[in-house]
Each structure stands twice: as C-alpha cells, then as structure tokens.
C-alpha cells in the first residue's frame, strides 16, 4: 500500500507534534499499552487514562480539516488542548502567525497563552454555556472578544457586533438581550459570531451542530462554509457525524482511543478507507 506520500512545500499554519494528554499518575508504558489496537484508553499498569497519545498533524492555511471519532476518541480533548482549556502532558504546538512558528505554544506563560487565544484563535463549543457569558448581553459577548483583542472604541465595537450578528442571522433588536433567552440554534450562532469577532486566523469548532434541529444544522453549516470562503479562515472541525465532515472539510483525521488511525483527503477517507476502524465507521453510516 503506497502510504508514504511526499511532503508538500506549503507551510503549515498549525503544527502539532506528539501531543499527549494523560489523566492520572502516568508511567513509561502508558502509551505502549493503550490505543486502538488494545481498544483501550486505560493503562493496565498504572490505571491512568490516555485521552490523547502522541498526536501529530499539520493544518495548512485556508483549509478546513476534520477530526472525526466516536466518544472517547480524544478529539474534544485535542481541541481543548489547542485552546489551552486543558494542559497537555507533553507535546509541542506551533502557530505560524505567532513568533514565526518557532515557539512552542505549550511552553509559554499563561499571559501569553491568553494573548494567543484572544488574538489568534476562536472556538465554538458544543455547549453554548461554555462559549458565552450568559450574564452579558449578546452584543456584550462579542464586545468581550473584541475588547480582549484590544478594540477600545464603542462605536466600532457596536458596528462590528451588528455586522457579525446579521451575518449569522440574529435579529439586531436582540443584540442587547441575554443569550440565556435564545434558542439553542441562536446561541450557537452567537457563539460563532463571537468566535469570528477578532478575525482569528484559526477557528476551532467542537461538535457545533450536534443536538441541533436539522434545519438549524444546515443553516449553521452553510454559514461556516460561507465564512470560510469570505475570510479564508483556517478551521478545525470536530464531529462524530461524517455528513458534516463530508460537507465542510478537505482533509480528515480519524481518531480512536486517543490516536489518529487514519488521515487523508476527506473523499478518500470516506470512499476508500484504509484502516479497519475507518471502514467500520463508514460501513455504519446510515
């Protein structure tokens, strides 16, 4: 099987190298004794949970990359680690737009991490309560992201908030309402507008359509695609739904038990899956 592909000359925007997240005491054999071949995340020797083990991949500018896997695959942990919500046990992460891609983001101070989060990244969570401050108005939430990115002009903030909200089709009269009073789909859209507020080069989307009505789901996927086209934002889309992955992404990573078992062009992963687990997933699609 010709799996040894050539290297491209393109520079990646994001480089992840050997990222691991282990909950528990961890021991030398944790990585060896867990994984898809063992069908387990739990190290038999020390009992630690290996949520992610030695994950390495690149994300290129302007692309949408998908990460698909079932519960326990480690995909959410991976995304959270990239956004600094979780602290990885080991590994390196480099962003081309931060210090020329030469500094490992996992080793910098929390102040700098906060700067990177506020200026270079955006995230949309599955649960809007994680991404939004329910005590602030809708416009206030977007303002928070802009203020964190050093926008200190009320007029400009309001204008930008209005732009974003109309892009996600939230009526402007509700701009000063609390998101607590919105429907699930609307909350997600507010999250998306907040994540985009500061034009981040990298956008992380963690199961953003899971649990939403089909019509709302379609609307949001549409929106994401449109945003990507308009702004050329690089995105990482995490989902367990292959339909979403097929629709949005150019490339896909398949994860199981904390490891990447397969990666490739999305249509190739879906039509010619190589790894037994991927084949199982594809065959299981309704």
């Amino acid at each position, binding site marked *: *099987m*010709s*799996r*040894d*592909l*050539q*290297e*491209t000359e*393109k520079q990646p925007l994001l480089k992840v190298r050997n990222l691991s997240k282990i909950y528990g005491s961890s021991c030398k054999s944790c990585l060896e004794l867990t994984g898809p071949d063992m069908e387990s995340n739990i190290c038999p020797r020390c009992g630690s949970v290996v949520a992610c083990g030695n994950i390495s991949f690149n994300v*290129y500018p302007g*692309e949408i990359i998908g990460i698909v896997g079932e519960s326990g695959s480690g995909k959410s942990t991976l995304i959270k680690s990239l956004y600094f919500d979780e602290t990885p046990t080991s590994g390196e992460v480099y962003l081309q737009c931060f210090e020329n891609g030469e500094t490992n983001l996992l080793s910098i101070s929390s102040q700098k991490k906060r700067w990177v989060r506020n200026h270079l990244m955006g995230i949309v969570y599955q649960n809007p309560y994680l991404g939004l401050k329910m005590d602030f108005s809708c416009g206030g939430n977007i303002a928070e992201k802009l203020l964190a990115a050093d926008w200190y002009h009320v007029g400009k903030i309001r204008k930008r908030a209005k732009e974003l909200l109309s892009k996600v089709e939230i009526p402007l009269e509700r701009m000063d309402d609390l998101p607590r009073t919105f429907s699930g789909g609307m909350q997600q859209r507010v999250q998306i507008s907040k994540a985009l507020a500061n034009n981040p080069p990298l956008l992380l989307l963690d199961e953003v359509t899971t649990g939403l009505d089909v019509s709302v789901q*379609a*609307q949001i*996927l*549409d929106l994401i*695609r449109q945003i990507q*086209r308009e702004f050329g934002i690089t995105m990482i889309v995490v989902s367990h739904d292959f339909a979403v992955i*097929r*629709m949005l992404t*150019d*490339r896909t990573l398949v994860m199981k038990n904390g490891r990447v078992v397969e990666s*490739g*062009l999305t*249509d*190739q992963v879906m*039509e*010619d899956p*190589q*790894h*037994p687990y991927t*084949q*199982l997933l594809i*065959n299981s699609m309704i």
Partner: protein
Amino acid sequence: MSVILQVENLGKVFIMHHFNQKKIIGCRSVNFSVHEGEFVGITGKSGAGKSTVLKCIYRTYLPTNGRILFQSKLFGKIDLARSAEQDIISIRHHEMGYVSQFLNVLPRVTALNVVAEALMEMGCDNERAVFQAKTMLRYFQIPENLWDAYPNTFSGGEKLRLNLARAMIKRPRLLLLDEPTASLDNQSKGPVKEMILELKRSGTSMIGIFHDIEFMKDVVDTSYTMNQGYLKEGIVA
C-alpha cells in the same frame, strides 16, 4: 502534442478488514497516456474497473501500486499516487476536474452559487464569478428560474448538467468524466458535446467513461476498454 498524464502499471486492491481481509481487485496493470487536448474514452461492463481508474487519478482512491504522472503547471511533473494531500487539493482546485453522475452539494446552496463558488475557489472575485456562472448555466440550458433554487430538487439531467457546468467553468487542464451523459436525453447531449469539443480546442485533456458509443465516437480520440480490471485498446459496448 505533449503528454499530460501517464498512467504506469496502476493497480488498486481493496482490503475489506471486516470480511476476513477479503481482497477486491479494482484494476490491475493499467497503462495508458493522455496527450494535451486529447479525449481518451474508456468503455467496459459494469464493475470492470473504469470508475476505479478515474478515482485513482483523482485520488479519491489510494492506488495500491503504480504511478500516475501528471504534468502539472503548479508542481511540474508529479506522481499523483504519491503526492502530498495539500498538493492534490491545489491541483483539484486549479487543474483537474471530476464529473460524476451524482451531484453532491451542500444543502442551501443555490445552483448559481454552486457554479460561482467553483470559480471563486480559484481566486476569482464574486462579481466576475457570478457573471461567468450565469453564462455557463445558460449554455447548459439550465432555466433561469432554477438559478436561485436548491439543486437537490432538480431532475437527474439537470443535476448532471449542473455538475458539468461546475467542473467545466474552471477550464481544467485535465477533466475526468464518469458517465457524463447517463441521464441526458438526446437533445441535452448536444450542448455537452459542443462544450467538450470546445474544451478540447482550448487544450483541455479529458478521460471519459461512456456507455453511449454513438456519443463517444464524435468526441473521443483514443479508446480503451476494461475487463476484469485490465485495460486494453479498442471499444467494447
């Protein structure tokens, strides 16, 4: 005329891990080349491996062995079977197109946008893309009142013509056509043939799978036929 694509000893084997590692042979020892501006036609029974070859070239399938040498304007001469995924993505956007019988688009993208976006992918601006898309849709006789409709509701023929419009608007250097006239009536086939000839004239090379021999004869320069995964010259219905 120089060679734009050289397929050498291409083989594809599918391994079904959940059926006891059962192997299915898609194609084997396929050798042929395509020159610039040439139309290569492939015929053969269903399951003979024609789509497999096309999909291997487009990299939807990962070839098991062999080389697919493509003369790319972006990368020079490269082996599509082993190229980096990023490079394949660039080639798909700018140089190589694929038209299948099935339309797969996002929900809620109008027919006009489906075609316009194909151009915008190449870096064209919105206005120009929309203008050219309209021309293309008109050419393929997709009625104006459908331009702002969602293609999921189109007939088979309309979907196919939309597919063609989307692929051909890019004027790719290499176009792969998987049964491009399958659901078209004779009248609709006319513009497709014209478009193919026009693309040929402007230097697009094409590989097409056909069941319609009549249609083939008018556009194809070289024909091959596939049987049980093997490719050889000639036409077989």
